[in-house]
């Protein structure tokens, strides 16, 4: 039970935090069509997050609903990978190219996870995955198309795309590190270490078409042996949560 709860939080937090990041583009995207598209992707991920956090709360059985889990957990209780929390723009830490690079990597990886999760012995996870694969396929496609455009557009956009990939690459390895929680749930959870060849192939296809190379950058170190999955995050997450949770925390007892 503790493992299943933790697993739902892992996948739910990934979606919640990336959704929060993508929604930052809302009213700031390079063109209106992209305002619509990024909001759409953020909404899909938010939907996945709500189902997964609700499931986590249900399995845990301690009366925590999606909002309690989203708004009243502290930073070290968040189980998302560090990739989704860093600022890839529109803040000063990134730009549209790094947003696309992250989305390409993340949605390729998550699509591989969800494709297997469809077979999960947990009926809720299986249903969430079945709905999610279609969404994620669209996200991946959207990111791949922009990768081609930016890599094959102007000299400047190509530089940005290369830099964007370099920005996110140190955090890619973490996606495939199996966590004890995942290994403790055979038939229910997906072991991400098995997905690397498949995801690499997808990425290599996109990189090939875009004339890009897979970056050669070492992975970001864990902190005291812990990564995002263990609650050890980057300095970016604290700010993100402060903004996200402030109102909910400052009016305890309010209903919305």
């Amino acid at each position, binding site marked *: 039970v503790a493992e299943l709860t933790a697993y739902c939080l892992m996948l739910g937090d990934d979606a*919640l935090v990336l959704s*929060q990041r993508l*929604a*930052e583009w*809302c*009213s*700031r*995207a*390079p*063109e*209106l*069509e*992209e*305002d*619509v598209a990024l*909001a*759409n992707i*953020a*909404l899909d991920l*938010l*939907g996945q*997050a*709500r189902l997964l*956090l609700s499931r986590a709360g249900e399995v845990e059985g301690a009366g925590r609903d*999606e*909002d309690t889990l*989203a*708004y009243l957990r502290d930073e070290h209780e968040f189980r998302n990978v560090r990739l989704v929390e860093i600022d890839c723009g*529109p803040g000063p830490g990134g*730009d*549209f190219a790094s947003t696309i690079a992250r989305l390409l990597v993340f949605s390729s990886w998550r699509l591989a996870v969800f494709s297997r999760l469809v077979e999960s012995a947990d009926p809720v996870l299986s249903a969430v995955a079945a709905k999610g694969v279609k969404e994620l396929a669209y996200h991946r496609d959207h990111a791949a198309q922009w990768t*081609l*455009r*930016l890599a*094959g*557009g*102007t000299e*400047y*956009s190509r530089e*940005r795309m290369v830099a964007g990939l370099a920005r996110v690459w140190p955090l890619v390895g973490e996606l495939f590190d199996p966590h004890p929680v995942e290994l403790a749930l055979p038939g229910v959870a997906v072991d991400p270490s098995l997905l690397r060849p498949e995801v690499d192939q997808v990425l290599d296809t996109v990189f090939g078409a875009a004339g890009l190379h897979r970056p050669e950058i070492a992975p970001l170190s864990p902190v005291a042996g812990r990564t995002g999955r263990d609650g050890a995050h980057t300095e970016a997450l604290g700010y993100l949560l402060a*903004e*996200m949770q*402030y*109102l*909910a925390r400052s*009016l305890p*007892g*309010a*209903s*919305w």
Partner: protein
Amino acid sequence: MDAEREREFDRVVAAEQRVEPRDWMPDGYRKTLIRQIAQHAHSEIIGMQPEANWISRAPSLRRKAILLAKVQDEAGHGLYLYAATETLGADREDLTTRLVQGRQKYSSIFNYPTLTFADVGVIGWLVDGAAICNQVPLCRTSYGPYARAMIRVCKEESFHQRQGYELLMTMMRGTEAQRRMVQDAVDRWWWPSLMMFGPPDDASSNTERSMAWRIKRHTNDELRQKFVDMTVPQAEALGVTLPDPELRWNPERGHHDFGQIDWDEFWRVVGGDGPCNRQRVDHRRAAHENGAWVREAAAAYAAKQARQEGAA
């Protein structure tokens, strides 16, 4: 020849039929429409900002999803409306340039700040409500693409209005702090909402011609009265006080009387000195300028693809 076309145009308009993009139309009609639809499109786009301001801080995931979807719809409305101007020969890039250079207006209501989450609900209720009053008649406007765009816009805005009102209802049933937030938001948005119908009829220069062309169908003051009459019972149901001591039912008129609008404030905000005018335009300009390299890349890529396909 032109005189004959003009008679035909006048006949179509008077018969409540639709003018379509390929039909002949007077220059003034075309220009008036481009200006009006562009301002409407700009309003949708600028209008994303005050609400987007609360997406990251929405206090529940459900409200976050509703708000994000709503702001996304506004971007969508902007897109249809810019497309409608393009059927009249306008160019979206050119209109955007006018917006970010402050040469074309958008609805002044978006020059007010959203200070609490209750503002999200009040914008849905009052601002979308006023917009719907303004826009429902436009669903029968004489220019076809505009009328069709407005049908879709109005449908979605009614949905947004209901969501806004529902948020306020929920908040009014919540804590004392939440009720205070709602009342405070109503106090701040009520008068600007009334200003959304434009200056009083005796000071409105464009009304007469626009009505003849069936671009406009009611005067500003008529629409404003309709909005007040519609809103008063909703405020009562909600349990909030509208900040106008002179507001009361007048059985003789069969309408609510209401107090004097601060037209100085109206003109000040229209003139650029509202609480957020510079902020809104700066925000839009920054997004537009920061995104230029992305749009250039997409155009360059599309051109290369087209060349390759031509060569193959």
